């Protein structure tokens, strides 16, 4: 797949130095700093024809070899006309991992962003309804972070326990 037209759109919108590209197998990746990610996605949507947000996910790089940032957020964009795919990647850090929401661009981002918030605690600013989606409302941790143990932290803090004498 040829990505030249996509790259020229990004160059004209963001400038030459604003992003880094890399390729592995057939995945074409564009690394953008967090403050420019919305500009990049907007340019890709409006000018390069990426009309579908196929996937949005996050990775916690806490124990990853040679990692510099804590969380990576990956947007997989798809151009349904040409079949071109690009992966836009950005990094955020503690204590306040935060990104602008892409819900105004793609309505499909609604639940995907909620899931990333639920699992990693990354806040998407401007999301209309950023609540936990898979875990209960009162849950305190973010289980897909690497510092959360595989077997969990025992019982939930608000787990109702009924003593035998009262039952």
């Amino acid at each position, binding site marked *: 797949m040829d990505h030249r037209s996509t790259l020229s759109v990004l160059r004209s919108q963001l400038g030459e130095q604003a992003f880094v590209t890399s390729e*592995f197998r057939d995945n074409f990746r564009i690394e953008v700093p967090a403050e420019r990610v919305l500009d990049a996605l907007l340019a890709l949507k409006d000018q390069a024809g990426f009309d579908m947000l196929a996937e949005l996910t996050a990775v916690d790089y806490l124990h*990853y070899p040679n990692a510099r940032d804590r969380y990576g957020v990956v947007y997989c964009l798809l151009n349904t006309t040409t079949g071109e795919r690009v992966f836009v990647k950005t990094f955020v850090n503690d204590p306040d991992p935060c990104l602008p929401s892409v819900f105004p661009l793609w309505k499909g981002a609604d639940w995907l962003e909620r899931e990333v918030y639920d*699992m990693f605690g990354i806040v998407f600013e401007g999301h209309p309804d950023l609540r936990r989606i898979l875990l209960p409302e009162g849950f305190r941790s973010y289980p897909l972070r690497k510092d959360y143990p595989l077997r969990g932290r025992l019982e939930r803090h608000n787990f109702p326990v009924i003593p035998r004498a009262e039952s």
Partner: protein
Amino acid sequence: MPLQEVESFVGEETADKDFLYTLNFGPQHPATHTTLRLILTLDGETVIRAVPDIGYLHSGFEKLGEDLDFNQYVTIVDRMNYISPIANEIAWHHVVEKLLGIEITPRCRYIRTIMAEIARISDHLLNVGTAALDLGAFTAFLYAFYQREKCYDIYETAAGQRFHPSYTRVGGLMADVTDDWIRKVRDFVVGFPKAHSDISKLLNKNRIFMDRTQGIGVLSREDAINLSVTGPLARASGVVRDLRKDEPYLAYSELDFQVVCAKEGDCYARYMVRMGEMLESLKIIQQAIENLPSGPVNVDIEGKAVIPDKSATYRSIEGLIQHFELIMTNRQWKVPVEEVYGANETANGELGFYIVADGTGRAYRARTRPPSFIHFAIFPYLIEGHLISDVPAILGSLNIIAAELDR
């Protein structure tokens, strides 16, 4: 006693809406088929707003994927979309092999193609059968489930397990297929068109079924793309996209089949697309089984990717070493420190995996792109303004599998 006017205790902002009624649908309801919950706001019988509440079956599959190695995790992906489990396995190992750069053998490619298509047929059969069942057509469900039994027989013959076969391995399969399996697939190819036409005759022109599904839950082409919808749902809305054609994998580029599409985008169109896809899948199976290549199913033992068979492990030192290398958690495969996304066209849509590898035999992060999760998010858009009796019709046409929805 004379009637007295009762003072309304509703707040001012809701005073004009106090006729609205809130209905809790699920989490256990015969029409949901799986564990999911909807909070419906009704005006009479019209649904004003639907708020899905999910997470009842969340069991941390993606966290488990970070603890199990590439071969072990196949038993977990099985349990995501348990209606077509083998399609998940094929998708998972497709991405793992993409990461490791393994090219599987032609025989393996064909066997996986046949299995993936049988999974597609069994998934569509369940969906069509239960969607009709919820709308009152019971007989089609029985025809569909009789054929699904045959699909399970085929899995069982190949893998020894009918419901969760765990059949694929990195670089190959658990075992080669037998002549018995080939005979069963051939019998299925011969016998299935009869059942398909029986179901079509019962439903395609059925007045009640048409009235309940036509014009219900219309999804326009633009919305389908904007809401990330893939698979038969998108194709029923006129999005001509099928990963089997657009990003060919396995043996699909060598086989002749067509992409079934419709324009209407309603529940009936989704049903028709699924019915059409089953016949195309059957065409693929027929071509693949007649052209099944001979040769090994696993990649070469020199590639150091597959676990050698028992006799090689017990009787040769090379086999024993190879087995040891792949089982010990600090040895295993040569994995690049990279991340990769790959996707397969499963019955429900684009099932993708995003694997982040840190050089060990287990994924650092194993993200699933679950089609059911993305498709359930569009439910509030589809149901708005429809009657409450359309809830099962739309839910049925979306084919939500809660185990994949919640993972």
